[in-house]
């Protein structure tokens, strides 16, 4: 039993923190809010040069082949910086899927472009935002002679206007809901695609993407017809754990800002951090963060070590619920500790407050994951 970071993980953590403090200050995060397409191109290219975009890609596919625990270390640093890049959709989801798609002809070419930072892939999966699995998908892809025609509406598609390709999950078959899904890499410039921006709490680039008779050639079918969920499921688990890491990073940084403010803000003749009411809020939230952090690494470790699927599913659900609650609570309390300033537009902590709850609701909210967990416990 050992829960220390490895030497490699400590180095990755230190170098990522230094780099992001320098290249991704909160001023950049603020400047990119509400902007379109909202992608910091230079930062993304530098991340490619640092090898971050190939970090979880297997070595035999040209990546670094690191584990999910290492990925969590990096995701935490991205979260601390509120780094607004499509790391999870492009690298973890699309990169992970393409790497695992045996026999996909463009596999290595696409992976190479993802890793060099020249290919952005957006993930067009959610429709109503009530589930984070096959039940979410109603969009249809009807086979034609040389490919498929996609119709439907996707929402919460991050970086859709920055993307070169959209990774689309659509129904190609009938039968059991999990069985009829297929995955497509759709050219973002395809006729029949309509993209409109959604206004979010984080003011980040998320889009509603409507497909009206969008034609996609057969060679852009990723994996076999009807194999979508089988391929997607393990990749989504990894993506959810990576997002837990991101949430922990956001929570840690917000909490640190709250502590810092509590030390210097003087009321009643002394720093407000000397009052037990304030101390106890901060002590409770830091305990939540620490527990959720260890739980996130535990979930990553379970996946890295191929533990049985049902066990992994339950642990991932717990990690997502714990990290989501931690980032919500930490950002909410940190803003509250700032008093009135915690709600003023140009104060840094509000960047965190606006993201905390959004992150908790992303990739399946607490209701969804609670039900998943309850189902696994009570069946």
């Amino acid at each position, binding site marked *: 039993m050992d829960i220390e*970071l490895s030497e490699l993980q400590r180095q990755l953590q230190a170098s990522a923190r230094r780099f992001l403090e320098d290249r991704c200050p909160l001023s950049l995060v603020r400047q990119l809010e509400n902007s379109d397409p909202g992608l910091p191109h230079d930062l993304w290219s530098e991340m490619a040069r640092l090898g971050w975009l190939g970090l979880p890609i297997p070595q035999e596919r040209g990546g670094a082949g690191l584990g999910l625990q290492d990925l969590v270390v990096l995701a935490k640093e991205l979260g601390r910086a509120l780094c607004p890049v499509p790391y999870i959709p492009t690298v973890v989801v699309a990169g992970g899927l393409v790497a695992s798609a045996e026999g996909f002809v463009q596999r290595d070419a696409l992976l190479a472009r993802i890793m060099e930072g020249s290919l952005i892939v957006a993930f067009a999966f959610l429709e109503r935002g009530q589930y984070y699995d096959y039940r979410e998908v109603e969009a249809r892809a009807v086979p034609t002679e040389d490919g498929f025609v996609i119709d439907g509406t996707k929402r919460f598609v991050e970086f859709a206007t920055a993307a070169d390709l959209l990774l689309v999950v659509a129904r190609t078959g009938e039968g059991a809901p999990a069985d009829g899904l297929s995955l497509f890499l759709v050219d973002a410039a395809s006729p029949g695609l309509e993209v409109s921006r959604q206004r979010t709490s984080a003011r980040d680039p998320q889009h509603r993407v409507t497909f009206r008779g969008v034609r996609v050639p057969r060679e852009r079918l990723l994996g076999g017809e009807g194999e979508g969920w089988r391929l997607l499921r393990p990749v989504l688990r990894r993506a959810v754990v990576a997002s837990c890491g991101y949430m922990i990073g956001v929570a840690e940084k917000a909490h640190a800002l709250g502590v810092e403010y509590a030390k210097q803000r003087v009321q009643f003749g002394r720093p407000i*951090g*000397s009052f037990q009411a304030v101390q106890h809020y901060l002590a409770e939230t830091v305990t939540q963060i*620490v527990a959720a952090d260890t739980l996130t690494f535990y979930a990553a470790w379970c996946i890295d070590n191929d533990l049985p699927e049902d066990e992994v599913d339950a642990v991932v659900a*717990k990690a997502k619920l714990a990290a989501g609650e931690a980032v919500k609570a930490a950002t909410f309390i940190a803003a509250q500790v700032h008093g009135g300033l915690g709600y003023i537009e140009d104060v840094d902590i509000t960047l965190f407050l606006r993201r905390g709850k959004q992150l908790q609701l992303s990739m399946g909210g607490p209701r969804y994951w609670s039900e998943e967990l309850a189902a696994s416990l*009570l069946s």
Partner: protein
Amino acid sequence: MDFRFSPEEEAFRQEVRRFLDEALTDEVRTRFGLLDTPERQRFGDKLAERGWLGLGFPSEYGGAGEGLRFAPYILNQELLRAQAPIVGKNVGIIANVILRHGSEELKKEFLPRIFRNEIQWAIAYTEPEAGSDLANLQCRAVLEGDEFVVTGTKRFITSAHFADYYWAAVRTDPTAQPKHRGISLLIIDASLPGITVTPMWTIIGERTNEVYFDNVRVPKKYLVGELNQGWYYVMEALNFERFTLTSTVPTEQKFRRLVEWVKAAQVDGRRLADDPGVRRLVARLAVLVEMARMLEIRCICTAVNPENVAAVEAAMNKMWGAVVETELADATLDLMGTPGYLAAGDEEAPLGGQVLDDYLFVGHMRVAAAGVDIAKNLIAKRLLGLPSGS
């Protein structure tokens, strides 16, 4: 990272389980963890025979020597799982502090006897006017020649009615400012003249005690460590206490008991397990329990290194454990409805009234050994560096 125990450590766990299958009879089993009856002391002797009381302690003092690093924690988990008496107080707390700070003479006198289960201890810190504000303790020890003369009252001394020795925090400098700089740690033989023990019964039938020391003369050599440094040893021992006396194993057991009960329960012919509110609650508790387990792992992984005292980790573990136990008992009773308040002994009491007992006593976890609020103070100061109030 590795969240597994090693194969050797898992083999040790199996060995402990096999032992418990045999040695744990109904007379030995206890909800309160104490070696307080002849049967339970004989059980302690069997643990000693196997060398399990001296795990990790140097062999020159009768310990088992360097062994599996996590063995003491695994033993503790298995004892708690089986509702056996536990050994965390004598070994985890007292032997550790004697080893770290005691004189050579004390180590030689006490450590081998602890590891052979020859002596039982009572921890005597708390007083009527010194609870959370432990530094306010007044029990006096005045040095007269080669003896300390001890006078005062100790309260909530759980093992006092069967202990051979008291592990007592006493005031040796009444003028010290701040107050905690005038406290020393003393080993007091329970058979000395001048000691009176009177019981205090808890609401679920556990015995604790008030102890009166009236001019009890204690040889000077039974001072642990330095004079007036006792506060620091006590604080260190409390960090051991916050996790050597507990584990999340019983918490997980209670959670599984809840899950099984929910799966079987019906209201108006409908399964309780199909009620969305119930499902949400069960999921929430599952997360809280798992978080407690993670905090315990952090504690153990920190404390396993003898250089470390896991102060912050122990405070987090303590706080979260108490919060989860409270929610678990409270929520389970809520699900039971009105029959939830039927007590042990009532034939219709759900789960034999155990959950009600848990609820009634869980507040104890929130206040004992520096309670939840004190733990938060410690986290705020030690981890976050927030300033002290005036």
